[in-house]
């Protein structure tokens, strides 16, 4: 066998004066990095397979382990970086596409970090959320063009306008689409329970709904993607809303890919596909080649659910996102979900993940602006997705025009994910992106639920503080309120695209 030219991404430093050879690291590494040397009575490591997930480091009872980036250096070259060379070595060896998990890891500009929030000083009062009510309640769905009332003769008025179905959120944050199959049953259960606990929703992704999770139907958004995995009438009718997935921020233009290794018996039952087969979603929906086709599917789903559930359409943020979103609203969607460049995935070709799409901040601003100009902003809610990392990102997204946000990577991190980006191997040491029975039980849904609800609770407290500082007591008043945003370190083109002014002006 010819020599591999790839070198280890990490090195492991084991402090032998601290290591007690308890072998917890040996038992916890699904990549077999650590091993017990019986002759010498010590634990050693072979870092070649280390993915940098820190499972061993976190569980080591004596903190004897450190994982470091391999300091091995090539002769410096600004164009031919180490990562570029390593990719070529790997492809020359395998002849295949390089895969990655999670969102784009390239240093594209993160616009959230170039926007700053306002606060009240002297001329208008700020609000203390600990002393005064602060409303985060959010409704998602189409709003009527106008409201008609009829006097009932007793001085009361009855609403005559028929309202469309709405999703009611206690906080403007939902858990984004992650399928059962790409993530474990325990991860799905943690998300469902946390959504119920916090008065929000989680999304099934394109993997269908496990029968045991039907009890969480009222907080479930059921996704219908191009593969139609797990889609049937009960699935649609159980959920609170339906989402047609056209695209995903991590891989615009291509369909999902769940490796056969992750299609276990339970996953195969839920997805309604044979066990062990790759679940490949087609790149397009084969029945959608136009806005009119999309309208047909939206109304087919509305018809199937007796017009009782809002229908969302999720698209990746791409160059012409504004007219695309306009078309989606005109096609009858109640919610438009936009997933930006940095959105996560369980598996995507690295080249697509890192190079296709546009950042959510720019897409969101463009869509909100376009829908306002066309006078149809009220006809659909906008949900922003694609790397919402903290509560400030949530506030900035809402100020840019989002009604709510989707979080997925943050939720995974809350459950233990360390962004090793190897979800597609099915060997997630944290028990999240795996179906291996040895690994899935590492995520206790009681802990998962607690950590997720803690995260949402912490963010909601921070959001209230930030809103209070601005003198705003309801999230409704923050929505699209770009006066509360200022750009720093941005050029005029970027400021114009975001529709905000530069700091100091």
């Amino acid at each position: 066998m010819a020599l591999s030219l790839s070198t280890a991404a990490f090195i492991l430093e084991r402090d032998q004066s601290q290591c007690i050879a308890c072998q917890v690291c040996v038992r916890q590494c699904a990549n077999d990095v650590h091993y017990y040397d019986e002759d010498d009575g010590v634990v050693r490591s072979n870092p070649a397979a280390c993915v940098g997930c820190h499972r061993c480091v976190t569980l080591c009872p004596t903190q004897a382990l450190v994982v470091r980036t391999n300091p091995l250096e090539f002769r410096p070259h600004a164009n031919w970086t180490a990562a570029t060379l390593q990719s070529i070595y790997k492809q020359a060896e395998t002849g295949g596409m390089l895969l990655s998990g999670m969102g784009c890891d390239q240093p594209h500009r993160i616009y959230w970090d170039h926007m700053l929030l306002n606060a009240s000083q002297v001329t208008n009062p700020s609000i203390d959320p600990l002393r005064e009510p602060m409303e985060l309640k959010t409704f998602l769905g189409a709003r009527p063009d106008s409201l008609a009332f009829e006097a009932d003769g007793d001085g009361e008025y009855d609403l005559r306008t028929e309202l469309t179905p709405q999703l009611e959120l206690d906080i403007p944050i939902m858990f984004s689409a992650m399928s059962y199959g790409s993530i474990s049953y325990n991860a799905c259960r943690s998300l469902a329970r946390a959504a119920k606990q916090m008065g929000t929703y989680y999304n099934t992704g394109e993997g269908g709904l496990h029968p045991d999770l039907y009890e969480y139907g009222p907080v479930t958004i059921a996704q219908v993607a191009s593969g139609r995995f797990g889609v049937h009438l009960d699935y649609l009718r159980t959920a609170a809303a339906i989402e047609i997935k056209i695209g995903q921020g991590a891989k615009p233009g291509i369909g999902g890919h769940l490796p056969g290794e992750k299609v276990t018996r339970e996953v195969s039952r839920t997805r309604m596909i044979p066990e062990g087969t790759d679940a490949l979603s087609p790149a397009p929906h084969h029945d959608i080649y136009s806005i009119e086709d999309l309208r047909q599917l939206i109304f087919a789903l509305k018809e199937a659910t007796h017009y009782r559930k809002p229908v969302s359409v999720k698209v990746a943020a791409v160059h012409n996102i504004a007219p695309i979103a306009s078309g989606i609203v005109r096609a009858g969607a109640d919610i438009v979900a936009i997933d930006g460049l940095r959105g996560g995935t369980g598996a995507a070709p690295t080249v697509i993940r890192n190079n296709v799409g546009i950042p959510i901040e720019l897409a969101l601003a463009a869509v909100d602006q376009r829908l306002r100009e066309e006078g149809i902003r009220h006809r659909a809610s906008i949900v922003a997705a694609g790397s919402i990392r903290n509560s400030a990102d949530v506030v900035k997204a809402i100020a840019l025009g989002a009604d709510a946000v989707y979080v997925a990577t943050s939720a995974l991190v809350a459950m233990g994910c360390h962004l090793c980006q190897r979800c597609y191997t099915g060997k997630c040491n944290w028990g999240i992106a795996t179906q291996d029975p040895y690994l899935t039980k590492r995520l206790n849904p009681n802990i998962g639920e607690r950590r997720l609800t803690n995260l949402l609770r912490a963010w909601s407290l921070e959001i209230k503080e930030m809103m209070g500082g601005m003198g705003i007591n309801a999230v409704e008043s923050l929505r699209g309120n770009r006066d509360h945003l200022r750009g720093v370190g941005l050029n005029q083109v970027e400021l114009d695209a975001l529709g905000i002014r530069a700091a100091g002006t």
Partner: protein
Amino acid sequence: MKRIVIHEEYCIACRLCEVHCLVAHSSSRDIVKAYRHERDTIMSRVVVEESGPLSFAMQCRQCEDPRCLEACPSGAMHRDPRTGAITCDESRCVGCWMCIMVCPAGAVQQSTSGHRIASKCDLCQDADMPACVAHCPNEALTYEEVS
């Protein structure tokens, strides 16, 4: 009384319970020193049983009607009047191993201390919570009031 409840569906077979049980019953109470200097004479009173992906940490079940108490000829095995926990008074144990023979859970072991005494879980009586429960990273062991 409070008992250790096993949740085998969340046991990840890391054996940290064994590590921390051993440390809790060492004289140094220091994890590195316990392993370096006392390893041969102290032992964990909890044992992780494994069969394929199924695993769980087994320690004394604190039976309502403990057979070890009945079988013990020296009265070493007794119920602590204060906490209700079944423990072995090592100064009275004669090492006849009757408790090991009758324990339905296999939770009593021969001590490696060099003396012929029985070693079993004492629920870490001087602590708020048994060490195995406190250090289980996945809450596969809980300490609960169970009737």
